[in-house]
C-alpha cells in the first residue's frame, strides 16, 4: 500500500497553504498559462527574464495541493537561475516524478523539490506536479499558446 504521507509531505502541505511568489508580476516580460483540462488546475506564470537569467518569477492560479505547492516551490527554486540551469532542473524534476525506475533523482540538485519524490507512486497526479514546470518551459520558449499537460 502506498503511503499518503509520502505524497502529502509537510513541505507540500505548507506551500499549498501559504504559496510563495503568489502574485502578478507587474514588470513581467514573459507570461504563460497552463491548465489541466481534466482536473481544472490553472496557473499563470510571470517572469522577468534578463540576459537569459530569471530575475523575477511569480504565479497565480488555483488547483490541487500538488499543483499549487509545485508552482510555489518551482518559482522559489528557479528564481535567479539562468535559462539553461532552469531547464536542467526541469529535467531532473521530471525524471524524479515521472521517469523510469532506474532514473532516480539526485537529491543534491533538487533540494526542497525532492518533496515531490512520492508523486511517482501516484501516476494520476504526475501531471499536477508537472504543470508549473511545463508552463515555465513555455514561458522560457515564449510559446504563445496555453500549455496543457493532457
Amino acid at each position: 500500500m502506498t503511503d499518503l504521507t509520502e505524497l502529502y509531505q509537510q513541505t507540500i502541505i505548507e506551500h499549498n497553504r501559504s504559496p510563495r511568489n503568489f502574485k502578478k508580476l507587474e514588470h513581467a516580460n514573459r507570461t504563460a498559462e497552463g491548465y489541466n483540462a481534466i482536473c481544472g488546475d490553472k496557473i499563470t506564470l510571470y517572469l522577468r527574464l534578463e540576459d537569459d537569467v530569471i530575475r523575477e518569477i511569480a504565479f497565480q492560479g488555483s488547483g490541487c495541493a500538488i499543483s499549487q505547492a509545485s508552482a510555489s516551490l518551482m518559482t522559489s527554486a528557479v528564481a535567479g537561475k539562468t535559462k539553461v540551469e532552469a531547464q536542467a532542473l526541469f529535467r531532473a524534476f521530471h525524471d524524479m516524478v515521472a521517469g523510469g525506475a532506474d532514473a532516480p533523482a539526485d537529491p543534491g540538485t533538487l533540494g526542497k523539490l525532492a518533496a515531490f519524490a512520492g508523486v511517482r507512486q501516484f501516476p494520476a497526479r504526475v501531471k499536477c506536479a508537472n504543470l508549473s514546470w511545463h508552463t515555465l518551459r513555455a514561458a522560457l520558449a515564449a510559446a504563445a499558446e496555453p500549455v496543457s499537460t493532457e
Partner: protein
Amino acid sequence: MTTAHRATPRTRAARPAPEVATRRADFPLLATRVHGRPLVYLDNAATSQKPQAVIDAITRYYETANANVHRGVYSLSEHATAAYEGAREKARSFLNAREAREIIFVRSTTEGINLVASSFGRTNLGPGDEVLISAMEHHSNIVPWQLICEERGATLRVIPMNQAGELLLDEYERRLTERTKIVALVHVSNSLGTINPVREVVARAHARGIPVLVDGAQAAPHMPVDVQALDCDFYTVSGHKMFGPTGIGMLYGKAPRLEAMPPYQGGGDMIRSVTFARTTFAEIPAKFEAGTPHIAGAIGLGAAIDYLSRLDWGLVAAHEADLLAYASARLLEVPGVRLVGTAAHKASVISFVVAGVHAHDVGTIVDQEGVAIRTGHHCTQPVMEFFGVPATARASFAFYNTREDADALVAALAKVRQVFGG
C-alpha cells in the same frame, strides 16, 4: 428519488433491502480489493459495473454465435442477425418505443447526440435559427450543437438554472421563439443529480412545434424510461452506464423524424443500391447504422436490459432514495463539506466540495481507503463556473450500493482532515 423517501430516519443499523444484498453478488468486480481494502465503488455516473449475465452473454456470443449480420445466408449469420435484432427489440421495450425501427444502435450517448446534431442540424438549421440547451448540460450536449451552429450560422441559447441546480421554466418559456429549431436537454444531470421535468419541457416545446432531444445517459440506470409518456422526439443512452458494455448505446427517434433526416455516416449496410452516379439509402434504422455494428455490444446491452427488467423498480427507487438521503446527511456531518446541487427532485448522485481542499486531493486520499469517487469538472465546466468551484468530488450510487458504502466514504473523508489539518 421521491420526496417521501427523503424523510427516512437516518438509523445506521438499517441493512440494505434483501433485493439489493443478493444483487451485489451478481457483479463480480464489486468483490475486488483496492489498496488492501474492499472496493467501495461510488463512480457509477461515470460507468457502472457489469453483472455476470452481461459478461456471459458477450462471451457466449463470441464462443458460439460470432458472424457478421444482415449479410450471410448461412445459418450462423442468421443466428447473429437474429440476436442483434433481438437486442433492438429489447431496447424498444426498455424505452417503450412504438417500433423497433425507432431504435438506432450507436456508440454512446455522445454519438447519439452528434448524430442528431449533424443530421437534423444540417437540414433544419440556418442563419438566425437557434438551438436551446440547458445550463447543466454535459459537454456532449453542448459541443456537438456548437459545431453545427457554427457551420450553419445558427445560435446556441441556454436555459438558466437556480442555485439549487433546478431549471428556471419561466426563463425556458421566454427563450422558446419562432427561431428555436430544437431543444436539447439532460434528463438527469451527471454533476448535480437534478432530475429535470422532461415531460413539461417537451410539452412546452411541442406547443410551438419544436422537437426535443433528451440526453438520458444518467436516467436509464436509475428509473424506468418511457419515451411515449415523455413524448420526446429523440432520447439517447449509453449501455455502459446502465450495467451493459462500453462502446454501445441507443438513440430513439420518432419514426417520422428519423425518416426525414439524411444519413449521418455513409458505408455498407445503410444503402439500398449504389452506383458511382447515385446511391439510394436503406430505410431506418439501417440508414443510420453504416458499417458492421457492435454486434457483441448490442447483445451485451440486451442482456443488461433483461437483467434490469427483472429488478423490482419500486424497491430500487426506494433504496436509492434512502441512499441519497442517508449519504447526503452523513456527508453534511463532515466539517467543511458543502453539497453542490440540492434540487428537490434528485437522483442518487451527490457532488460536494471540502472547504480548503481541492477535489483532486480528496479523490486521491479516499482512494487509499478503497473508495472510488470521481473528482473534477465532470465534463460540465459551465456548471462548475456557475457554482464558482473549480471542481467537485462526486459520489454516485447505483442500486447495488449500500449505506455501508456511504459510511466508508465518510470515514475516508476523515483522513482528508488528517492530511490537510484544520
